């Protein structure tokens, strides 16, 4: 720790951990209300089809069926964009609201076409199976290049040649073509990636009901709660004041809950039946009915270098596969091409992307949000360049490292970077030089390899997105604090981090801070938790609000002690005088006197502050992988992995480690096993549960080591930067580079399945 902090930097236990360990924590699916109905969704079995007619008479006859919602019964409800970008959020960027609560025209396998509310799940399921639908099948496309071709079936009236968005690199510089022409070395590569499913252990779930006062109450998993309330208001034409949106515990997000999930259908059925409705997706529905990671049919990158390894040119063209609706997916290109250049100086930069609709399940944000795929390509090309220039992979990265004061990825001044420290620590802890330079026996079918990669990511999405966080800090008479905030409790230990930030400023313990949250009736506006922003932005608002409350407390204490407020400081739940250490008062006593003061001087110390980030402090990481490649089976295992992170001050090192260790599981899945298969002949998704879609389990995981550079950023609260996404971003390229080190080939498509690797090892 570079500062003398007492609470920040400690490994506190999470305020919600005991509730989760005992089964008391209530998730959306655990909510039960009297008279509650259970909903089930009828989904299109075709990738592109028109519902010509729908006969619900047989389904309606089943006892217990309360309501069947078909596309003909949507009344005047609005269509929407589940990514919630159809209303101002990103300047000049709109996504047309094209999705209905249920749809007459199905754009992908699994698109909802009807929904049933019934007394119980089995009845609802039976009713769904008895809805007779007359579909007219339409021609469909599953890949982006085919979708853009003349004569391909049109998917949206808003997308000519199915190109939903043509986006360009937002911070171009120099003349990239000239720089490539003049470069001593040009390395180029085309990379490809499938989708990745978030596989949140809790599936999408929502409970909604209309209360006696006519307000729509919704338990929503959305990680952007206030935006979800706005979007529901827009869909159902209900004023925001008539919607109460509550956030229960959420069983994982990783970006998926940044879009609306089960809310529209559950709310629609509650509005129609005037009864509580619960909708919980099956695992299979999660795979086809939610936004999953945006896949790219092609990411072509060209890099130019001088002989000494100086990077002079960066150019990319991306072709993204969005699925049936635009949603959050298009931004994966801009985020990817921007952030992948966050750690390298490069005077000539250009890029463009075509983000194309296809008849596949929709795409959106997942941890990394495009940066993981761009970095997968970039970091392999950096290795190729190093090899051709006779440099160590670490040295070529150090050579091009950005420094504080440079322009950061998102066009802002770079406040802090400890990227070089990440590399130095990683080299030492991993034993990079010895491992790479020690000759290996090449006998046997198992080949060992060592590889590394680096990355930079963001802390929030400002200035690309319009963001805004608020916090309310209120002292109680016992010296404890209620902190009212509304980040998404998706498992990232955010309540603990905010309580630490608040407690540090107020000289109390983290356990003295009670988090009040999860209800839009109570919380101030919160943009929400995405882009690794909560600790930084909600933490920033918390720190400011705490400071405001602290000033009131100090002023009061100054009067009580007869010393100037400037002489006072807070520590150990006590107000101390700097100049006269004998003069002190417990914080509780000051609070009590202020609240229970009947002489016309009553006061409740409180602070309410907004924080609209105009800074974006990037985080940096270095990743070192050891792999074993079985050259007979093509199977790759990862015995050891070292991650080094610069996330500013680690507010809670245990939580930071947790983010990086968890990111490693998802990163190994992305790199090696998680293969989302869409049948090109039928448009059907073939991997809809864990038997066919393989996420790493405990025995699959390497010995993982995480090192935190832990140096403060000048802008973040107590120097903190974001850390949620970095865990994911550098994993796949480090593994790919290690595979190359082991067997000398590169697979440029994710995941690197045994088939693909054998294909590369055995030239046809």
């Amino acid at each position, binding site marked *: 720790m570079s500062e003398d902090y007492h609470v920040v930097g400690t490994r506190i236990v999470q305020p919600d951990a005991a509730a989760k360990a*005992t089964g008391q924590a209530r998730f959306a699916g655990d909510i039960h209300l009297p008279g509650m109905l259970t909903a089930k969704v009828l989904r299109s079995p075709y990738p592109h089809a028109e519902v010509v007619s729908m006969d619900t008479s047989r389904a309606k006859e089943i006892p217990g069926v309360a309501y069947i919602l078909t596309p003909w019964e949507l009344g005047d409800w609005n269509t929407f964009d589940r990514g919630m970008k159809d209303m101002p959020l990103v300047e000049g960027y709109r996504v047309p609201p094209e999705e209905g609560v249920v749809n007459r025209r199905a754009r992908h396998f699994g698109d909802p076409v009807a929904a049933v509310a019934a007394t119980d799940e089995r009845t609802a399921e039976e009713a769904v199976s008895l809805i007779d639908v007359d579909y007219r099948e339409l021609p469909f496309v599953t890949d982006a290049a085919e979708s853009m071709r003349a004569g391909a079936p049109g998917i949206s009236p808003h997308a000519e040649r199915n190109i939903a968005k043509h986006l360009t690199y937002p911070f171009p510089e120099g003349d990239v073509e000239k720089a490539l022409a003049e470069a001593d070395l040009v390395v180029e590569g085309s990379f490809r990636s499938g989708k990745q499913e978030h596989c949140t252990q809790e599936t999408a779930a929502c409970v909604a009901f209309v209360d006696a006062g006519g307000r729509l109450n919704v338990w929503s998993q959305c990680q952007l709660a206030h935006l979800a309330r706005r979007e529901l208001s827009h869909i159902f034409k209900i004023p925001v004041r008539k919607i109460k949106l509550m956030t229960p515990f959420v069983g994982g997000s990783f970006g998926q809950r940044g879009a609306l999930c089960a809310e529209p259908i559950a709310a629609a059925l509650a509005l129609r039946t005037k009864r509580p409705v619960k909708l919980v997706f099956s695992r299979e529905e999660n795979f086809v009915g939610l936004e999953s990671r945006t896949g790219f049919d092609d990411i072509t990158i060209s890099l130019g270098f001088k002989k000494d390894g100086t990077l002079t040119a960066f150019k990319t063209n991306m072709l993204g596969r969005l699925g049936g609706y635009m949603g959050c997916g298009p931004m994966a290109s801009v985020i990817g091409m921007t952030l992948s250049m966050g750690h390298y100086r490069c005077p000539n930069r250009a890029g463009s992307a075509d983000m194309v609709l296809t008849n596949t399940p929709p795409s959106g944000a997942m941890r990394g949000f495009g940066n993981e795929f761009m970095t997968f390509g970039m970091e392999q090309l950096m290795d190729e360049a190093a090899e051709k220039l006779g440099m160590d992979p670490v040295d070529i990265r150090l050579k091009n490292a950005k420094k504080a004061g440079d322009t950061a990825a998102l066009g802002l001044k770079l406040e802090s970077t400890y990227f070089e420290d990440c590399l130095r620590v990683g080299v030492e802890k991993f034993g990079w030089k010895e491992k790479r330079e020690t000759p290996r026996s090449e006998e046997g079918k198992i080949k060992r390899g060592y590889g590394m990669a680096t990355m930079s990511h963001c802390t929030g999405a400002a200035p690309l997105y319009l963001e805004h966080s608020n916090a309310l800090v209120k002292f109680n008479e016992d010296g404890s604090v209620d902190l009212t905030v509304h980040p998404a409790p998706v*498992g990232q230990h955010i309540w603990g981090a905010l309580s630490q930030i608040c407690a540090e400023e107020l000289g109390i313990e983290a356990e003295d801070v009670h988090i009040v949250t999860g209800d839009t009736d109570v919380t101030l506006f919160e943009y929400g938790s995405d882009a690794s922003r909560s600790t930084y932005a909600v933490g920033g608002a918390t720190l400011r609000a705490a400071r405001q409350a602290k000033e009131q407390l100090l002023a009061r204490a100054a009067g009580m002690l007869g010393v100037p407020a400037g002489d006072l400081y807070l520590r150990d739940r006590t107000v101390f005088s700097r100049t006269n250490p004998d003069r002190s008062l417990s914080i509780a006593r000051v609070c009590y006197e202020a609240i229970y003061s009947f002489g016309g001087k009553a006061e409740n110390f409180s602070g309410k502050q907004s924080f609209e980030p105009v800074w974006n402090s990037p985080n940096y990481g270095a990743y070192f992988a050891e792999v074993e490649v079985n050259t007979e089976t093509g199977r790759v295992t990862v015995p050891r992995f070292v991650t080094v992170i610069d996330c500013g001050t680690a507010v809670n090192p245990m939580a930071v480690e947790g983010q990086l260790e968890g990111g490693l599981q998802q990163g190994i899945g992305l790199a090696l096993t998680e293969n989302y298969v869409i049948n090109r002949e039928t448009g059907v998704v073939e991997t809809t549960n864990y038997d066919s879609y393989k996420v790493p389990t405990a025995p699959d995981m390497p010995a993982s080591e995480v090192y935190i550079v832990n140096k403060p950023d000048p802008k973040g609260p107590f120097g903190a930067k974001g850390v949620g996404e970095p865990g994911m971003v550098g994993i796949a390229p480090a593994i790919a580079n290690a595979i190359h080190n082991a067997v000398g080939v590169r697979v440029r498509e994710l995941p690197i399945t045994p088939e693909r690797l054998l294909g590369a090892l055995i030239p046809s």
Partner: protein
Amino acid sequence: MKTIARYVVNGEPYELAVEPFQLLIEVLREQLGLTGTKHSCGVGNCGACTVLVDGKPVLSCMTLAVTARDKQITTIEGLARGGELHPLQKAFVEYGAIQCGYCTPGMILSAEALLEKFPDPSEEQVREAVSGNICRCTGYVKIVEAVLAAARGNERSLDR
């Protein structure tokens, strides 16, 4: 047709009317309100619904309720005694082994079954014991640490 079945759940005897097709998870969550047992994949692939039946880990989403009649069932709600967390629960809390918490009940019960059989397991044994429990948040690192710590009776150790 419903039949009357007896269970001892978390030490309490119950007599319940269950349908022949009803799953154990449904009886626990819906009839007894024990929502700590979680539903996730529905087909026995992920372990979120793990409960102990006569001390053995069982996937309650794959188990017909009638087949567990007359048996001792332990859910996550039954581990803490007298307001004290079970050593595994304590270790999971202290070691940061809980993130979103959705896999936690099943994970802890799988670990409990392991420690009943092997009080001093190796790291490999722990990894193997929870290999049927998918966690998407933690990378299993702190989960394995917590189980080993609980086995060593060292469930509180924050100053590493």
